[in-house]
């Protein structure tokens, strides 16, 4: 297995630049997930690592060797495509053994390796079938099998689960994670599904519009998103944001007032230096406490516009402080549309971002 290093890599299609200087170190045996909204350049970056896309600028190194001009055949990476790209004219066994047969391996050896991979992936019964006679999940497994048969330097995945239904996706997600624990293979995994990213990754790379927004472990990203974009992208339901201006009270404690209610929200000490600055306050729906109550001045009050019961938790959609606010709680709440609730924000769970740059301030 191997490390992959990406140094100031850029990509342009003619005048259109889609990647602006990407820097990333992927260490041996690491599982890195690239996430970001559609069109942000995840696939492009992955395909550049694979050698399927020309590198416009910068360097890609595998185990310290610059491989910009090495053709995909010689990079010794395996890739699982979104479409699976199974060879339609070959059986499952032939699909999985193709790379070995190309490298001149003998028949018995191919058979043995394919058999082992098939066992890991529960494909033993399908080896003689053609891809068109397989279900979606089975095809997905064959695509994985094709990758693991040959023990490559690293695995690349481009949204491998996006063609599966929700249940199968959850299942395959777990299988991929287990597979990684068995094989310990360096992996780069592209997805736009943040749950997939959170559950699979050792480290997540959040991308936006051709740039890396933040790199970190799932928990890091969740607890301390470094930009407003990451904060909004990671976590479900999406984080709530309130805009306002940092003010200081008579004791010079920083606070912010929200909406028309003029309710005070105290801010951490550190925000003293930012008095007068326009900020966005982010708070996750899980970190807002809602209590049914009559409107009270000085509190943030919201009226319920939608109640979603998922069984485990209750989601409330409120209008408060002149905007929409989402609240999630583990408790069963007995509220109905039109009811009033008082909200309190957990002070140590506030994420404060500069309104202009979107950078984290606390």
């Amino acid at each position: 297995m191997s490390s992959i290093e990406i140094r100031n890599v850029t990509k342009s299609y003619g005048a259109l630049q889609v990647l602006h200087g990407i820097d990333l170190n992927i260490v041996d045996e690491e599982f890195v997930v690239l996430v970001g909204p559609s069109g942000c350049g995840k696939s492009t970056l992955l395909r550049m690592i694979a050698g399927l896309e020309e590198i416009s600028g910068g360097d890609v190194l595998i185990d310290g060797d610059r491989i910009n001009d090495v053709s995909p055949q010689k990079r010794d990476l395996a890739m699982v495509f979104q479409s699976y790209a199974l060879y339609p004219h070959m059986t499952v066994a032939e699909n999985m053994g193709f790379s070995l047969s190309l490298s001149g391996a003998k028949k018995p050896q191919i058979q043995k390796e394919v058999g082992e991979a098939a066992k890991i992936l529960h494909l033993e019964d399908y080896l003689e079938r053609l891809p068109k006679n397989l279900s979606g999940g089975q095809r997905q497994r064959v695509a994985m099998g094709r990758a693991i048969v040959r023990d490559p330097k690293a695995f690349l995945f481009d949204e491998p689960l996006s063609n599966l239904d929700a249940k199968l996706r959850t299942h395959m997600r777990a299988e991929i994670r287990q597979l990684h624990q068995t094989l310990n293979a360096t992996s780069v995994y592209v997805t736009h599904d943040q749950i997939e990213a959170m559950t699979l990754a050792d480290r997540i790379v959040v991308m936006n519009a051709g740039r890396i927004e933040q790199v970190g472990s799932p928990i890091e990203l969740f607890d301390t998103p470094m930009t407003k974009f990451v904060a909004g992208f990671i976590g479900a339901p999406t984080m709530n944001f309130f805009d306002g201006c940092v003010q200081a009270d008579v004791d010079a404690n920083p606070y912010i007032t929200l909406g028309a209610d003029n309710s005070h929200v105290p801010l951490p000490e550190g925000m003293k230096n930012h008095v007068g600055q326009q900020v966005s306050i982010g708070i996750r729906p899980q970190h807002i406490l809602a209590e049914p109550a009559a409107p009270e001045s000085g509190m943030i009050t919201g009226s319920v516009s939608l109640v979603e019961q998922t069984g485990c938790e209750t989601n409330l959609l409120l209008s408060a402080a002149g905007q929409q606010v989402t609240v999630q709680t583990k408790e069963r709440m007995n509220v109905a549309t039109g009811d009033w609730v008082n909200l309190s924000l957990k002070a140590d769970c506030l994420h404060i971002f500069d309104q202009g740059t979107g950078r984290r301030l606390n």
Partner: protein
Amino acid sequence: MSSKAKFSLLCWGALMPLMVVILFPYATMLSTALKRKDEIFQFEISWLPDGLYLGNFVELFVNRGFGQAIFNSIYISVGATLVSLLVALPAAYALSRLKLPGKSTFRTYLLITQMISPIVLIVGLFRLFAYLGMINDLNALVFAHSAFYMAFAVWMLQSYFDTIPKDLEEAAWMDGASRFASFRRVFLPLCLPGIAVTSLFTFVNSWNEYAMALTILRDGSLQTAPVRIAFLTGTLYETEWNIIMAATLIATLPVAIVFASIQSYLIRGLSLGGVK
């Protein structure tokens, strides 16, 4: 009667007039080819021949050198198919798969070659081959046909190639296949049907071509089947229709069968590539 059966009857009824007009000459061909010479010129002509008379075919091959004409036609058609495939395959592959400067210019160029009919150029073609010393040379026709039918081959092949996902080749590269290996072991097996249809189409077109063959092959022993047959009408005082129809039947039937077998692919091929 089920409603589909009724509907089918309606459809066949609507197509019937055209079918009669299309099939009428074939009936004529068949009935005449199996008749004796004197049966045709009888006062009372009839549809059915008196008996299955195969003498016309024997006469054709033994005394009229029709075997030679068939051979010439096969030589030219096979040659033209191979040559046009040889130049069209890489061109279609490049159009479908590769970055290429001037791609759209090349497309326009192909369209223009289709706008120019060989017959408008016939005088120039004659001079070209005279200059190359290739008048009365079957190879001249091989090259002429492949040049004029190449554009269509490129279109058909390209539209077929476009249906093969690029992913598959990329997957092969990732599996370590060289460009050539992925072409041979993944791409080629998948587009073989398209190549086959294109070849047959080119073959049929070349087999049937008349004007260039008439003009460039002046020598009787080099004539292709269609030219030979047309000449049979003019050589004798009285036209021997029975012989001619027998010849037409031989020259037509095999290609018609080939053509019928690829007919459904043609519709798909043209619908994919034709308009874009």
